[in-house]
């Protein structure tokens, strides 16, 4: 069993419990133990771009520093947590001013300088477990046409996220093939769902989410999967049931025959 420090985030402890629970059980079945870090705090859900923002980045730095001393890797699952933590880590590595001010505040035993490797669950499946090994572990291949919804947070900015090709990503399609499904590639899979603007101008996410689902349906998808609780919400609430939307880990659990 490989043990990796894991940052769940606030939403995965509440509305998105399904994402957390299925991910842990599937990882275990595949030989990975997700070791929840101690005393984590909400990451803030959006990366603060202002160069003078420090306090809003500290929660991510604390989690990263904890992981540095506990295996050197930090596993994330929610797309938003992943985006915030990975971009903050890049600042700690490359931005002298942010690194100095964050360390000046935190007064850690040893200053943090971006040493931890941030790993999304999908990256873990690909590089630590391997899609071939997943394929072998599948007991119930999902003979369905599935559309991957990347959204924006996993992919952009690509220079920092280095997750996949931002215009033509393939990792979730490879995942779908590994669990026996047929991936459906559709144009809006890396287009934003409308994000937090739901709370300010509800029409914008409505239009965006409908476009995503309509585009997936036109290309033949029977369902859509995501790694983000906000994508799931926007697509479900605004999507008029155009297609069912699920967490990718729910399908993994189904394919592996993991009982939840």
């Amino acid at each position, binding site marked *: 069993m490989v043990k990796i420090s894991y940052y769940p985030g606030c939403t995965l402890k509440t509305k998105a419990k399904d994402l957390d629970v299925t991910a842990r059980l599937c990882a275990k079945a595949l030989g990975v133990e997700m070791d929840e870090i101690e005393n984590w705090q909400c990451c*803030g859900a959006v990366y603060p771009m202002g160069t003078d923002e420090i306090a809003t980045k500290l929660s991510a730095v604390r989690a990263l520093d904890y992981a540095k001393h506990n295996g050197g890797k930090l596993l994330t699952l929610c797309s938003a947590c992943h985006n915030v933590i990975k971009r903050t880590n890049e600042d700690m590595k490359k931005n002298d001013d942010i690194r100095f001010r964050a360390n000046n505040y935190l007064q850690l035993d040893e200053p943090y300088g971006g040493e931890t490797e941030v790993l999304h669950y999908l990256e873990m499946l690909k590089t630590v477990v391997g899609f071939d090994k997943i394929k072998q572990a599948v007991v119930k291949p999902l003979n369905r046409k599935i559309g991957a919804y990347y959204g924006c947070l996993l992919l952009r900015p690509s220079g920092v996220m280095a997750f996949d090709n931002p215009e033509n990503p393939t990792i979730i399609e490879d995942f779908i093939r590994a669990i026996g499904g047929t991936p459906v590639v559709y144009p809006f899979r890396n287009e934003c769902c409308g994000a*937090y603007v739901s709370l300010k101008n509800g029409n914008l996410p409505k239009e965006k989410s409908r476009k995503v689902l309509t585009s997936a349906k036109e290309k033949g998808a029977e369902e859509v999967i995501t790694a983000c*609780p906000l994508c799931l919400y926007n697509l479900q609430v605004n999507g008029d049931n155009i297609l069912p939307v699920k967490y990718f880990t729910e399908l993994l659990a189904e394919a592996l025959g993991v009982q939840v």
Partner: protein
Amino acid sequence: MTNKEYVEIINRVSGTDVQKCMKCGKCSGRCPAFKDMDIKPHQFVSLLAKGKIEVLMESKAIWNCLSCMACVERCPRGVAPAAVVEAVRDTVTRMQGNNGIKAEEIPPIVDELIPQQLLVSAYRKYNK
């Protein structure tokens, strides 16, 4: 504070160099919020370069930008329009009484399914 001081601070907080913009419009071409951006991303960048910040601070664009980073991804000159929009929004919301979301507006729109992530991210983006 003078207009010049605001312009300087917004430029610094954005961490991007708007003078590098060559006005190609690729950022706006890729923007998924295009229709709802009363000032389009490329105009936003060039208005800051000209120091015209009042119109930016009063724009709807600062509330409708999705921070999706599509514009940043597309810019051939390494400019980050999203960061310029955020720097202006930060400057506005940091003024007393200028929060984009009022606490009393929240309960009526909260439904059973709403994820914490949405509330947290909207508060982080719109309020200081």
